């Protein structure tokens, strides 16, 4: 069975990469991702993996090298953060458009300007429509598990889409936590052969990748991509079930805490779910019916699970660690509202943009949001739909 180890978050991701043993890794250093790639470079050096490791001059080149290797049928991984992901943006949609199952870790970090190295989700949310599967992880354990699952999901013949796994920069990436890792042989046994339907190196069946499609076929290609994303849900569920049997870890796509009889709940991605859970526990002691909803998956959007988790609520606050600058709140909020829009009965849904640029999100802030929510639950009305938590005005 698995064993317990104490690792910093980036080391947990590098460990998963070592066990996955990809054919090619190409990456470029950026805080707070750097340690993942450095650990991995040492695995290559020590002969612990069979990977071709390519150091390049930018993330644009890193993702391009990944795309090149994946079109030859290789299992390919990388990792980045912030401006690095932004610089990859042009190639992200090449990976998804060509249906290449590249898998990466994104250690969430705020986008410039102003320059900042700490955690928020503006980087990965900026790539939410790039056709990549997106997992968000509360801690190193989930990051590690999500990364291994992502390989199986991305490479599945019914999916063939790239996937990114998020862990929170510094909060998760640089802190030591105890996690349970699988045996190398278990990971090896869990992964399947990566059967690429086409390969640029298959000289018996020559193929061209990415040729021009104009008004004639482009639309159909994109529709296929959209269909693949929707259909990937079945594979995601099947892979998660299999992984649960292997690891013993129950990790529903949308996780909940104390939700069954809750009147109000906070929905939040990644590490802040931990803070919220402890606040819920405290409020429960005072008899306050609070709950937590934590989506692990953001792309494809787990609509059914979100509806199920919110069905008994009077009030729901969605927390976003990035702003969409639309005047209508953050990205998770918009999508949750849209998912619930057609229901006859639904909670009042408010939004809190929080923790931008790594601003610490405290227990008191979460309590404040719950406090606001309790009056929303009582009155059925919210004074402000979109709020900013913990900002100095």
């Amino acid at each position: 069975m698995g064993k317990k180890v104490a690792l910093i978050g980036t080391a947990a991701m590098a460990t998963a990469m070592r066990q996955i043993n990809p054919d090619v890794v190409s990456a470029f250093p950026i805080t707070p991702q750097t340690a993942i790639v450095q650990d991995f470079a040492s695995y290559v050096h020590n002969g612990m993996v069979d990977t071709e490791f390519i150091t390049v001059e930018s993330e644009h080149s890193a993702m391009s090298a990944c795309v090149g290797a994946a079109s030859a049928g290789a299992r390919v991984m990388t990792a980045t953060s912030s401006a690095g992901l932004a610089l990859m943006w042009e190639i992200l949609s090449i990976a998804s458009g060509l249906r290449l199952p590249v898998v990466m870790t994104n250690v969430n970090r705020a986008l410039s300007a102003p320059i900042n190295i700490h955690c928020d989700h503006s980087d990965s949310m900026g790539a939410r429509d790039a056709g990549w599967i997106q997992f968000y992880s509360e801690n190193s354990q989930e990051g590690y598990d999500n990364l291994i699952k992502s390989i199986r999901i991305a490479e599945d013949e019914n999916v063939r889409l790239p996937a990114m796994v998020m862990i929170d920069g510094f909060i998760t990436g640089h802190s030591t936590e105890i996690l349970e890792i699988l045996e190398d042989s278990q990971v090896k046994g869990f992964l399947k052969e990566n059967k690429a339907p086409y390969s640029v190196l298959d000289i018996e069946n020559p193929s061209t990748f990415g040729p021009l499609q104009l008004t004639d076929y482009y639309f159909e290609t994109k529709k296929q991509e959209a269909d693949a994303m929707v259909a990937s849900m079945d594979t995601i569920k099947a892979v998660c079930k299999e992984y649960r049997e292997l690891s013993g870890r129950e990790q529903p796509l949308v996780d909940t805490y104390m939700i069954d009889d809750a009147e109000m709940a906070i929905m939040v991605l990644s590490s802040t779910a931990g803070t919220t859970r402890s606040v819920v526990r405290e409020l429960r002691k005072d008899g306050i019916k609070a709950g937590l909803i934590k989506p692990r998956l953001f792309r494809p959007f787990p609509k059914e699970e979100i509806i199920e988790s919110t069905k008994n609520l009077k009030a729901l606050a969605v927390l976003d660690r990035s702003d969409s600058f639309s005047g209508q709140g953050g990205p998770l909020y918009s999508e949750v509202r849209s998912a619930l829009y057609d229901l006859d009965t639904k909670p009042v849904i408010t939004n809190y943009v929080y923790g931008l640029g790594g601003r610490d999100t405290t227990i008191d802030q979460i309590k404040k949001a719950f406090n606001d929510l309790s009056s929303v639950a009582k009155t059925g009305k919210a004074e402000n739909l979109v709020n900013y938590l913990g900002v100095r005005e």
Partner: protein
Amino acid sequence: MNKKSNNLKPSDFNTQRKPTWCLGCGNFGIWNSIKKAFVNLGLKNHQILIVYGIGCSGNTTNFIKTYAFHALHGRALPIATGAKLANHKLNIIVMAGDGDGVGIGGNHFIHSCRRNIDITYIMHDNKTYGLTTGQTSPTSDKGYKTKSTPLGVIEEPINPVSLALSSNATFVARGFSGDVKYLTNIFESAIKHKGFSFVDVLQPCVTFNKKNTYDWYRERIYKLESDKEHKKEDLISAFKKSKEDMGGKIPIGVFFQQEKPSYGDGLKQIERKPLVDHVINDIDINNLLTSYF
């Protein structure tokens, strides 16, 4: 620029922040030299814009009091280019690392050279990525071992001086941050030069680069003036000199300088005054538009 007319001291270019570089870092030498060069050239704080890359070098943003722009990694040159076109009266300087300049931003470097835009580019060349804790950079010596390349670099390094020369830069020099006096002179000439001026500064990174140390450089460098054969108007000679560091000796000084119209010189829009000084409030475009109605 009137010499020494500003009555300033180098410390007048300090901010309230003390540099955060590691003790002994070569960035200190560059920092001291550039402030002295400003004083010697009679420049005032508000007459200078420095655009910085991201890196230990870029952290200078917080330690020199002029107009400042902390750009993205690799993108300092295009930002400086835009600023120069908007206000060509400003003295515009770019300070960034070797990773910034010939790695992620390499494309901008060669195009800025050939464009001959009138800015001064100071490359803090420590042959490593300092800020991200010492990975190899495109100027790292072959075989240089780091955490990202435990087996040593297998690629050939880029020689920034040769690259600038072959990209048609009109002022190309190399300095050493361990020789502040000489570096100050080079900075002054570079800033005075009309057109794109490039200074490759050999900058020891005492924390991560244990190979290219102060001693390592001191054993190898010599000043170009000591070679009477070399004329800075002679591109071929400059190119030969730039390739010398392959052979163990490293020349510093001005390799090449040429007078040529700079990019802005050809632009009608800024012939009479900088773009920022154009008043657009009271321009009535109705007359022009009615001719199309």
